[in-house]
């Protein structure tokens, strides 16, 4: 472990940022070449929303909002679960030799956050297209759904790492993730009220601050705890 040949470069150096960027570019390149996650999840989103449209037409705003966040949850599980499960044991060993665990988890967090932002925007568009547009303030909801996408992706990235190390499938991720994600979903659904109601509600700034604080805490925890998952 202490041998310089196995140990990754010291985190915090300039090369750390380079490693993160390289790993991120690798994920992006894989995605662009393979075009599996994006189109797979896109089809999943489109068909689910279409089924919702067939079964309920244009729902009222409370139902719309609830469906939207539930949809984000399932998109996130589908999109993020792959990020670790697709890496085989041999490939993980390879990354272990060329990069530090912190670089690796940061690149995954970054990639999944961007993926989820994209997915949130796409599903928001499809929701408006098929299930109607009950929002008086759609622009603020775009920002909220990006924030929500990032929050969900952070939690599920770390849980995907746990599930992958436990050599389990996405089902375990759902079991672990659903209780843990409830606080964030509650906060998000409260915050998104501003897009649906003209009346400005109190405590909005506090709730957004709590959500951002949670996100920062998850990043910090991932950085601290992932090295323990990593070594075998």
């Amino acid at each position, binding site marked *: 472990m202490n041998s310089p040949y196995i140990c990754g470069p010291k985190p915090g150096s300039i090369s750390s940022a380079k490693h993160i960027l390289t790993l991120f570019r690798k994920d992006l390149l894989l995605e662009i070449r393979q075009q599996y996650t994006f189109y797979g999840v896109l089809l999943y989103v489109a068909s689910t929303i279409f089924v919702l449209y067939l079964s309920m037409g244009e729902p009222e705003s409370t139902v719309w909002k609830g469906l939207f966040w539930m949809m984000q949850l399932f998109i996130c599980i589908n999109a993020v679960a792959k990020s670790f499960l697709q890496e085989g044991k041999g490939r993980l060993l390879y990354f272990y030799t060329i990069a530090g665990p912190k670089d690796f988890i940061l690149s995954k967090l970054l990639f999944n956050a961007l993926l989820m932002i994209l997915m949130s925007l796409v599903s928001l568009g499809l929701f408006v297209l098929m299930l109607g547009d009950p929002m008086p303030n759609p622009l603020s909801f775009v920002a909220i759904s990006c924030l929500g996408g990032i929050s969900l992706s952070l939690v599920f990235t770390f849980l995907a790492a746990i599930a992958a190390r436990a050599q389990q499938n996405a089902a375990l991720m759902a079991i672990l993730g659903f*209780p843990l994600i409830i*606080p964030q979903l509650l906060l998000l659904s409260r915050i998104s009220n501003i897009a649906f109601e003209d009346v400005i509600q109190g405590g909005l700034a506090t709730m957004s601050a709590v959500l951002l604080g949670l996100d920062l805490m998850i990043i910090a925890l991932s950085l601290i705890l992932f090295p323990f*998952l990593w070594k075998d």
Partner: protein
Amino acid sequence: MIRQKWWKILCGVLLVYTFIAGFLGGVPAKPILNETIRNLYFHVAMWFAMMVLFIVSVIYSIRYLRTNNHKYDIYALEYTKGGIVFGLLGFTTGSIWARWTWGAFWSSDPKQLGAVIALLIYLAYLVLRNSMTDMDKRARIGAVYNIFAFAMLMPTIWIIPRLMESLHPGGMGNPALDTHDIDARMRVVFWPGAVPGWTLLGVWITTLRIRLALLPERRESLHPTPNQARKLRNA
């Protein structure tokens, strides 16, 4: 310390005191609450005990990650189980209380939601552990999840219910552990009696279970060297 008797006797004495003084002692007459205010000695004190057990469990998880000593993993697991039992007790006593003050066992109050989320998170911890067979891996991944879950649980049960409307005492002007809500008669039962009493009971149950869980490992080393034997005895 664990094998000593004095704290078990203390636990019994404190709980007997809690029950006698809790049911017979004087309480301030509050509207709606009336005599149900005595639930403070049981419901609230059990939540205190649960929090203590979960905190101890996280400390042992951190110690496991730092030392890789398998014993600490068993400690963390058993303290979590003890915490879950006290969480269920706290939830049940709260529900019964809510039936006679709010009118229903369940009214999807933020505090109740927070309690259910906390229990689900820790039940998921048990499921995660059972999904792995390799002992080291189970211990390490379990410890990582335990720390992560604990850090996520804190905002759930301490911050978020405070941001929402709640009927629960302590929120929206409802009475709680405040200086003007409970008086000196209640405080001398709650702080020195109920809280340490229930906590000690939780620790007692957990240490018994830890000794039971460590037995098979002890049996494996039937003929230990004197040095190992001393180590085992101190375990």
